[in-house]
C-alpha cells in the first residue's frame, strides 16, 4: 500500500468521484502493478486480472488506436497477443475505441466505445469487466473516471506507459510480453480448476453489429432518437 487507505473499487461511485491520483494513489514502477489503489507485484496483479476476467459478467476488450493500426514496429505482434488473450477468455467481446472525437448524434454502443460517453457502451452491453489496451493515457484516464462514476464495471488497463490510478487493476509498460503473461495467468487459473463464468460459450462473441458485418450485411448506425 502507498501509505494511504484510498481504494479504487468498482462503482458506481456517484456523481463525481475524485481522481485517485489526488487521493494519494501513486503509479507503479516497472515490474509492479496497481490493484484497487495498492501497489502489487506484476505477478500478483496479473493473477487478479485473470480471475476477474474469467469470473465477471460479459468480459470485453477495448483496443485503442495504438494497437488497431500497425503503425510502428512491434504493434502487429502486440495486436496478435491481444487476440491470443481474447481466445483464452470464454465469451469475451472486442469493442474498439478507434477514435477519441465525440460521435454525434449518438454512438452505436455495440460498434465502439467512445471516451465522451463510455458508460453507454458499458451499460448497453452489461459489461462488468473490461481491458483497456492501446488507448492514449489521457483518454484512458478520463474514460476510466467516468466508468467508475457511473457503472459497476471492473476496469483493467494494460498500459504502454506508466499505468492508470483510476483503473481497478493496472499494469504499466505493458508490451506483447505482458499481454502474453496475462494470457498465461488465465491458462494457469483454468489449469488450477477455476471454471470460467462462460465456460460453455468459448470463443470470441460478436455483438449484433459485428455479426451483421461478418455476414456481409451492410451495417447502419442506430437510428437517431
Amino acid at each position, binding site marked *: 500500500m502507498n501509505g494511504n487507505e484510498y481504494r479504487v473499487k468498482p462503482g458506481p461511485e456517484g456523481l463525481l468521484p475524485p481522481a485517485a491520483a489526488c487521493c494519494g494513489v501513486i503509479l507503479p514502477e516497472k515490474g509492479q502493478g496497481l490493484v484497487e489503489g495498492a501497489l502489487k507485484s506484476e505477478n500478483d496483479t496479473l493473477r487478479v486480472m485473470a480471475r476477474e476476467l474469467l469470473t465477471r459478467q460479459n468480459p470485453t476488450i477495448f483496443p485503442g488506436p495504438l494497437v488497431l493500426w500497425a503503425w510502428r514496429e512491434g504493434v502487429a505482434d502486440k495486436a496478435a497477443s491481444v487476440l491470443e488473450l481474447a481466445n483464452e477468455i470464454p465469451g469475451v467481446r472486442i469493442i474498439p475505441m478507434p477514435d477519441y*472525437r465525440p460521435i454525434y448524434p449518438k454512438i452505436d454502443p455495440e460498434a465502439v466505445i467512445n471516451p465522451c460517453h463510455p458508460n453507454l457502451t458499458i451499460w448497453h452491453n452489461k459489461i462488468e469487466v473490461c481491458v483497456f489496451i492501446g488507448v492514449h493515457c489521457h483518454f484512458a484516464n478520463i474514460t476510466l473516471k467516468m466508468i467508475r462514476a457511473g457503472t459497476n464495471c471492473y476496469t483493467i488497463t494494460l498500459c504502454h*506507459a506508466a499505468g492508470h490510478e483510476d483503473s481497478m487493476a493496472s499494469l504499466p509498460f505493458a508490451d506483447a510480453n505482458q499481454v502474453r503473461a496475462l494470457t498465461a495467468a488465465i491458462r494457469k487459473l483454468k489449469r488450477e480448476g477455476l471454471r470460467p463464468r462462460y465456460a460453455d460459450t468459448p470463443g470470441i462473441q460478436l455483438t449484433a453489429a459485428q455479426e451483421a458485418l461478418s455476414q456481409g450485411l451492410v451495417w447502419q448506425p442506430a437510428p437517431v432518437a
Partner: protein
Amino acid sequence: MANTVNQRVVTPEHLLFEAPRTKAFITGSEAASEAVRRANVDIAIAYPITPQSETMERIGNLFAEGYIRDYYRAEDEVGAFSAISGASRTGVRCMTASSGPGLMRGLETIASWPGHRLPLVFLIMCRVINAPLSIQPDNLELDYMLTSGNILLHGENQQDFFDYTLAGFAISEKCEVTLPVAVAVDGFFVTHARAWVEMPSAELKLPPRDCYSEAVPMIDNENPPVRIARDAPIQKSNFISYQMHAAWQQEIHAAHERSRKWVSRYINGLVEVVNPEAETLIVASGSAVSQSREALRQAEEMGKKVGLIKVKSLRPFPTAELRAACRHAKRIIVPEFNCPGWLNREVRATLYGHSEAKIADGPRVYGGITMPTELILEWLFKSE
C-alpha cells in the same frame, strides 16, 4: 558552425546532474538562453516585452547559430501562445516567454495549454502588470498562473533559471505528465543581473521529444493511429458531456500529482529547507529567497536562529513538504514581491489544521520596490 547537429544527446539525468560543469558570470537572460542551447529545441516563438526581450533576442541568435530549428516573432502574445499550441500539437519541442502585461494578454491561451495536454516550456520574467505603466519587478502575474493548470516553478537566481529551464523540458514531456511547464523568475533582479552559473558543456543536449510516447496523439497526417483530431468541443447539453469535461479537468489535477515525482527528481526537491529546527521560519519563493538568506545570516549575527523554506515549485505545491518543515514552527513570515500575497495565501491554506504557528501577513513589496533585509528582520522579530 556550431549547431545542434554537432551536439551529443545525453539523458536529462546526465545533463542535469552528472556532466562536469564550468562557471560563467552571466545574466539570467543569458542563463536561460544557455539552457535553451542545450535543450534540443525545435521552435521558439514569442512577442517581445521587457524584461523578457533580451532572452528571446539571445534565443534568436541561437536560431542563427543552428541550435534551434525554427524561430519567429509573432504578431502579439495571443499569436505567439496560439502558435506554440499548434507547434506542440505536432510533436515538436517548443518554448516561448513573456512578462507581466504580455502574459496577461495571452492568458486565455496559456490556460488552454494544460487542457490540450501540450508539453512546452514557458519562461516568465516577472514584472508589474499595468496600469499605470511600469516595467519594474513585481510577480503579481504568478497569482494568475496558479490556477491555470500549468506546472509552475519559481527560480531564485540565475542558476535556478538555467537548471529549471532544462528540467522543465524533461518534466513536461513525461507521458504521465504531458503538461506545459512555466519557469518564472523575478524580472531584472535575475534577468538583468549577473551571477555565477555552473553549466554543463554546450556540446551536450537533451534527447529529442518522443511525441509518440505521450498521453495524447500528435497531429501527424502520415500516421494512421494519430490521424484523428482531438479535443472537439464538449458542449452538447447533456449530463454526460458535462461529466466528460469534469473528468478532463480532474485529469489535469491528477497529472499535476503525477508530476511531483519528476519535479522533485529534476530540481532536487520541491523545497529547500535551511535550519529546519528553528521555531521562527521564513517561507519564500523567487528573489525573496535570496533576500531571506541574507536576512537569515544577519539574524544569526544577532544570535537569533531563523529557518528558511525555499518553495521551488508553486504547482505542484509542496503540501506535504511544507507541513513537515513547519511542524515545529511558532512564527512564520512570508516575504513576497507582490501586493495580494499569493504565497501567503497558499501557505495559510496548506498549514491550516497542520501547524500552530502564527503566520504573519507579510512582509510584501511591489511596484518595483526592492525588499530590504531590514524589512524582513523587522517582521521576523516585531512580535518579540
